[in-house]
């Protein structure tokens, strides 16, 4: 039935379908596109019907996968058509063809707004639907108020209001800073009384988004949610059309329970009791039935209920009931339920006391590791990884090893990594650990990352008892016929270091070891050759008394490799030759490696990175959270395997490692010729490969290479650590007895990214802030709200502006009446680029004098306006700003590992407009923005971020602008946003003025009067 009603469209579709091959199809499509294009060029003769038809054809062609690069204008223009049929097509096709970043959308904002505020209900629906589907920032700015009005209007019918709710959700999700939801908690609570289930479902989605952002504001909604749940799940009080296979709106039930999971706990005993009653009913009353859809729907509710029970940390009895249910699920035939059973069991691991019950299901879980479905295998692997501890590590790791040879390629790397981590973490004895890793390399060498073998080497070096055993094992493995190259590396290293310990055993004489290893030399790659050469040198030095025959042989090899194509190998060969000629005098150079400093787990970090790629779920994260106390210091990853890290080349490690942290920004030209900065980041100092091979090639006095790094680390830790919560500096060093509510640093950081919110709150006062920015001018309004029923007196607010800001605060009244709020405008003018901060020195008297010093969020990014540029506009500018000091470039290490979209989000968040189509390399981001200050006026800034997909903790940052100070300040500013501060995780970087000596800002001498700097100094 229901033919399209457009003959031309139907004919075109059947034509395309009748094309015998892709070639013909393309011809037919091209012909049609040509036709449409000519018709669109001459708009005069075009009837609305034809226009509509062509636009549908365009969508069809687009759906087939062809590029449709014209006609967007026609589609968009239909939105302003007066009649419903055209308007409908315009809205729907626009929403399909364009995404929120498209410029065409700006043209229709007015038309869309007219439809939304107009009287025609059907037009309202169309407009709301489109905005809900593709609305971006511009829409949020101009429409959010209108949409809010529709949602709460009593004259609108449900069909409009449910769309308004979801439309608002979209606008809020996209731009929480633009959509003003002050005072929405009461409205949400009212909306939850809604009787129309369609509206209620949409409102519940909106509530989930709101509480996920700020649960504190919506406590009043909690009892209402419980009521709704009771109404649905217990009373079945719901119109027939909203039951789905006999279940009262499963979707609404799920959403309601989702919203409840954002509330940390439920205090009110009555509410808690009724909620648990409902949950208990769901847990017990869900049976498996024949109908698939009914089953799915009831289990959707059941799994959400399980999640809520876990979240609420119910009584033990209910928990074990949950685990029992999950145990049942992981053994059923229905694959969906099995999958979800495993997934939820992994989540359950977070709950204390149930691990033992989960362990009872170990055998069943191991069976799932062999399931035909990769989704299920992944869940099983994750769960096994999560549930592993000392008691079952041996079993689980051995299972994983066994499974490794059968596993599909997509999973092997992950599997190897996880086995390695578990083996290390829970090894009952160290020799077992060595066994596991060597087996791992033996079975899945291709999938064993370098970190894994570095780690085993570290372990062996640090445990003397283990060394002979490791050497013995290494010899066993290397003697096999086809050995993986990684095995050659690890065996060569271990044998070079420790084979002399077993020299008396048969088969372990230096000569024999040498000849076993030397067999492998012709087949290995350069980096392995480098290790082998070191091993030869070590073997040679450990051979006492010297064996002339062996010596000649090895020297001949060194000689040969002195002219090897790779310079690293040449150098090693030459140096080892020279050193070994010196005989016993260079003995201690070739002595055993000193112990590695105990720093853990490049692997774990790696596993976390991996997570983003392989879609694997939370188990690792859960683990890390659980184990934070285990002093996990995350080491950085090394540069790409192929290239040798610079330190490897030098005989002695760069003295630059020994720098004072304060001078950490000095530039050092490293061996690879790239100008790099050594950032005094602890995360960066643990370059495993660098250490391993670096010290292997060298031999400075043992330990000397490590020492400086540790100094750097400890020095650093001392500096930034106290910053987290101390944005509030107590007056005169006396502690205030009034405690702030909430974390001041966090509030400040949030305000750096948005323009309204609470700056400070304590039991007596709340200081809210609202800001507007126009070019280099800004205007704050401070809202000083007295929370008490008696007045606050001696109120005083002083602004301590840094040298680059001119700030004027209007008069602040000395007394704030009870329960009153006063508003104080504050004008800001930005004079020149700087990262310094303005401080509000605020005091009042309520019994005692209270004084706080608060940083004001007049930060650099507030004076940036993102602009989007095309490649044609971008590159000429980029080329003209090519030289320092207008362009600065820096390799930044210790960066928060972010995916590219996350990074883009971060940059957009600080008003650097990311232009996606300029850089062809998808690992790079290009952003542009205009900076406003009185001295620079509007100044274009161009930013390029080149990330390293193999190591997300480092990237290269290039910043260009027409002003040297701006370039520098902006670069530092971006860096502050990118870098992790391990010691103060809750306070993102700009919370502290960096310990870097800044190039003098234009106003000299201002440094000492700069209160931001002073404050930072205080901290």
């Amino acid at each position, binding site marked *: 039935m229901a033919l399209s009603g457009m003959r031309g469209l139907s004919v075109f*579709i059947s034509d395309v379908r009748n094309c015998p091959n892709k070639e013909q199809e393309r011809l037919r499509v091209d012909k049609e596109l040509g036709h449409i294009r000519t018709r669109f060029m001459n708009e005069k003769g075009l009837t609305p019907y034809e226009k509509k038809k062509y636009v549908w054809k365009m*969508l069809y062609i687009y759906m087939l996968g062809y590029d449709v690069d014209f006609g967007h204008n026609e589609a968009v223009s239909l939105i302003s058509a007066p009649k419903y049929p055209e308007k409908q097509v315009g809205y729907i096709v626009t929403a399909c063809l364009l995404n929120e970043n498209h410029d065409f959308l700006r043209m229709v904002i007015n038309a869309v707004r007219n439809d939304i505020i107009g009287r025609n209900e059907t037009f309202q629906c169309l407009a709301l639907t489109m905005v*809900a589907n593709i609305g971006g920032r511009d829409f949020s700015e101009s429409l959010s108020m209108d949409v809010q009005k529709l949602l709460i209007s009593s004259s609108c019918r449900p069909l409009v209001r449910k769309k308004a709710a979801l439309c608002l959700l979209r606008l809020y999700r996209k731009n929480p800073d633009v959509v003003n939801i002050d005072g929405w908690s009461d409205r949400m609570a009212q909306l939850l009384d809604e009787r129309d289930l*369609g509206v209620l479902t949409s409102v519940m989605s909106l509530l989930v988004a709101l509480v996920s952002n700020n649960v504190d504001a919506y406590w009043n909604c909690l009892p209402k949610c419980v009521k709704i749940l009771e109404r649905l799940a217990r009373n079945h009080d719901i119109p027939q059309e909203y039951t789905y296979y006999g279940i009262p709106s499963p979707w609404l039930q799920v959403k309601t329970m989702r919203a409840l999971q954002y509330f940390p706990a439920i205090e009110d005993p009555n509410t808690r009791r009724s909620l648990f009653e409902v949950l208990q009913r769901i847990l017990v009353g869900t049976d498996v039935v024949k109908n698939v859809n009914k089953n799915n729907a009831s289990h959707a509710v059941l799994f959400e209920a399980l999640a809520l029970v876990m979240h609420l940390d119910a009584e033990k009895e209910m928990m074990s009931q949950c685990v029992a249910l999950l145990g049942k699920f992981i053994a059923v035939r229905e694959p969906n339920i099995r999958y979800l059973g495993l997934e939820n069991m992994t989540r359950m691991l977070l709950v204390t006391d149930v691990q033992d019950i989960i362990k009872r299901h170990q055998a069943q879980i191991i069976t799932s590791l062999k399931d035909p479905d990769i989704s299920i295998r*992944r869940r099983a692997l994750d769960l096994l990884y999560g549930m592993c501890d000392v008691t079952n590590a041996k079993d689980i790791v051995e299972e994983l090893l066994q499974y490794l040879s059968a596993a599909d390629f997509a999973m092997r790397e992950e599997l190897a990594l996880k086995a390695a981590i578990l083996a290390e973490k829970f090894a009952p004895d160290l020799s077992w650990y060595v066994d596991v890793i060597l087996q791992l390399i033996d079975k899945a060498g291709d999938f064993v990352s370098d970190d894994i073998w570095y780690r085993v080497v570290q372990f062996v070096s640090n445990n003397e008892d283990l060394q002979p055993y490791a050497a013995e094992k290494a010899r066993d493995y290397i003697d096999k016929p086809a050995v993986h190259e990684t095995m050659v590396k690890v065996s060569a290293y271990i044998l070079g270091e420790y084979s002399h310990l077993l020299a008396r055993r048969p088969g372990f004489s230096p000569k024999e070891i040498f000849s076993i290893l030397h067999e492998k030399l012709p087949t290995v790659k350069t980096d392995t050759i480098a290790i082998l050469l070191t091993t030869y040198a070590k073997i040679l030095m450990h051979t006492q008394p010297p064996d002339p025959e062996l010596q000649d042989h090895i020297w001949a090899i060194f000689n040969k490799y002195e002219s090897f194509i790779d310079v690293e190998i040449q150098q090693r060969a030459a140096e080892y030759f020279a050193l070994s000629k010196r005989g016993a005098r260079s003995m201690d150079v070739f002595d055993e490696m000193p112990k590695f400093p105990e720093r853990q787990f490049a692997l774990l970090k790696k596993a976390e990175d991996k*997570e983003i790629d392989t879609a*694997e779920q939370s188990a690792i994260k859960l683990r890390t959270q659980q184990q934070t106390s285990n002093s996990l210091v995350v080491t950085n990853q090394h540069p790409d395997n192929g290239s040798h890290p610079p330190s490897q080349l030098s005989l002695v490690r760069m003295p630059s490692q020994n720098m004072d942290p304060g001078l950490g920004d000095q530039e050092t030209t490293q061996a690879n010729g790239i100008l790099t900065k050594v950032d005094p980041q602890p995360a960066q100092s643990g370059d495993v490969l660098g250490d391993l091979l670096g010290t292997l090639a060298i031999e400075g006095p043992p330990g000397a290479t490590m020492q400086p790094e540790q100094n750097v680390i400890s020095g650093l830790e001392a500096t930034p650590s106290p910053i987290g919560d101390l944005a509030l500096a107590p007056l005169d060093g006396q502690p205030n007895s009034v405690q702030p509510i909430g974390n001041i640093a966090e509030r400040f950081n949030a305000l750096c990214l948005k323009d309204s919110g609470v700056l400070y709150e304590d039991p007596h006062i709340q200081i809210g802030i609202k800001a507007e920015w126009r070019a280099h001018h800004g205007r704050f309004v401070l809202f000083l709200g007295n929370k008490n029923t008696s007045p606050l007196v001696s109120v005083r607010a002083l602004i301590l502006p840094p040298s680059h800001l001119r700030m004027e605060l209007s008069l602040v009244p000395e007394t704030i009446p009870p329960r009153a709020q006063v508003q104080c405008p504050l004008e800001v003018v930005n004079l020149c680029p700087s990262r310094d901060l303005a401080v509000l020195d605020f005091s009042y008297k309520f019994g005692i004098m209270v004084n706080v010093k608060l940083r004001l969020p007049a930060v650099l990014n507030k004076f940036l306006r993102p602009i989007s540029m095309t490649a044609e506009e971008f590159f000429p500018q980029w080329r003209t700003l090519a030289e320092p000091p207008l362009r600065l470039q820096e390799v930044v290490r210790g960066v928060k590992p972010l995916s590219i979209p996350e990074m883009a989000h971060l940059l957009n968040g600080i008003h650097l407009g990311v232009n996606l189509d300029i850089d062809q390399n998808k690992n790079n981001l290009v952003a542009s923005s205009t900076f406003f200050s009185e001295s620079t006026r509007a100044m274009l800034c161009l930013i390029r971020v080149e990330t390293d997909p193999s190591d997300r903790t480092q990237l290269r940052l290039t910043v260009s602008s027409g002003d040297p100070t701006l370039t520098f300040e902006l670069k530092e500013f971006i860096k502050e946003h990118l870098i992790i501060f391990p010691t103060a995780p809750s306070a993102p970087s700009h919370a502290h003025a960096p310990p870097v000596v800044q190039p003098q800002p234009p106003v000299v001498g201002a440094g000492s009067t700069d209160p931001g700097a002073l404050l930072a100094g205080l901290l």
Partner: protein
Amino acid sequence: MIHFVLLISRQGKVRLTKWYSPYSQKERSKVIRELSGVILSRGPKLCNFIEWRGYKVVYKRYASLYFCMCIDADDNELEVLEIIHHFVEILDRYFGSVCELDLIFNFHKAYYILDEILIAGELQESSKKTVTRLIAAQDSLVETAKEQASSISNMIAQATK
């Protein structure tokens, strides 16, 4: 939330796409290519979920068509699976035992219907009755407009005779 909806035929032809998160044209084709590769090659009797780039894709096959929805990793998978079924039931009601051809020749209708069920990547209406009623109302609006137009053009045609 649901990030996108895809309808793919067994031959890998796209029958409907709807994107609730911003994807560029390039990314869209890449996603379609990648996912149809993964989903079409999955055997029967496996679960309806795949893990993909940190997201989950819930899919279900109806005759020759695969309905796929991409959601966040911690969303409720079964709930989404039943949104798919809800959508299919409404299509079925509208077309009267729907088949792939209906969706090919009336792809625009499928878009109207989807817009009444999902917006902003969230379920908007769970009553089949309400959705069917709203779609019927839209159809009749279009019909009335058409009749008006034709009667006017008739009048003009007659007047100019």
